[in-house]
């Protein structure tokens, strides 16, 4: 009798643990494996003007301060986060 009960208990425990891992993950993510895209829902109407764009945009002449007038990218190095340290040679 014992010989039958023990493997049955092991099977039940393993199945429970396996399914618990699965359920926890699904419960945590809130999405199943087939639904990555459901986190991002973009209305098709907002995509169309960009998708259909084929010509350059009208731009003002560049300002005299040296900027392009079309970008906010900072000119100063110190405005942005630091560069990564170069990897040590031989490592």
């Amino acid at each position, binding site marked *: 009798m014992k010989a039958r009960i023990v493997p049955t208990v092991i099977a039940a425990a393993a199945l429970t643990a396996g399914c618990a891992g699965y359920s926890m993950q699904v419960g*945590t993510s*809130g999405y199943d494996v087939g639904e990555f895209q459901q986190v991002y*829902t973009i209305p098709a109407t907002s995509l169309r003007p*960009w*998708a259909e764009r084929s010509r350059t945009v*009208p731009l003002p002449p560049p300002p005299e301060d040296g900027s392009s007038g079309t970008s*906010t*990218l900072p*000119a100063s190095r110190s405005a942005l986060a630091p560069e990564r340290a170069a990897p040590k040679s031989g490592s």
Partner: protein
Amino acid sequence: MHWTCRNWLGAGVSVALLAVGSALAQTLSWPPLGEPSTGARVAGRWLWVDLITTDVSRSRDFYAKVFGWELREHPASTGSSRYLTIHVNGRDIGGLVAAPPDAKVGARWIGLASGDPKAMASRAREHGGAVVVAPRMLAGRGELAVLRDPEGVHFAVVRAEGGDPADHVGQDNEWLWTELWSKDPARAADFYRDVFGYAVGTAGDKASNGYVLAAGGRARAGIMRLPDASLDAAWIPYVRVASITATVERARVNGARVIVEPRRHYQSKVAVLVDPLGAPFAVAEWRSQ
């Protein structure tokens, strides 16, 4: 106790079930946000960018050719729901996600900024934005909400598991900057300041009507006036490149449209393109002062 062949078989099946359960738990995780977490968080710092596209394979081929990105299929990808991670310079910096099946042809980059999704969803609502996906835990990634600003532009807020990755400017073929092209830059600056707590400064001269959003003592993003009213407002991520001429040419050959030809910008050069599926992005050959 004597185990029969059937007992051993039962135990074997149990172990297999445990393994399958564990494997499923593993594969359902979202890709983590790049490098190991630091434990620190800077609200408003952009950590990751995902491309939503109706044709993952075509987008993959385009970006692999233009930037040399290695696009890795996530283990949980399926035929209709794919997620590819962008791997470059030894790290993951973003992803390509299949758009819902009913979406029309198109693509759009969506940035994920660090922050408290619940608090920022609430602030977004208060200041004229909307919550597209309510805050929820995504295994492997952290708590995330997808929000919409008053002009309808999507962005995401994420509280990364363990904190933000290390704070470094991107190397070649990595993200350098991100910029909102808005029909009303002043209003947009107010909105993002109210949501993330940014310090807002001006960019360029008065005519360009641009703003820089700073957090944690660093510039994190910009806002500039949309130069053509027929386009919708959009966040445009910048990729740092070694040669803007060569990159723009590669992009053009592979189906991109150039909407701002390479232009001098202080010591740097910038250009804005639209990828073959319609997602706007910028490239910058950056030389700092």
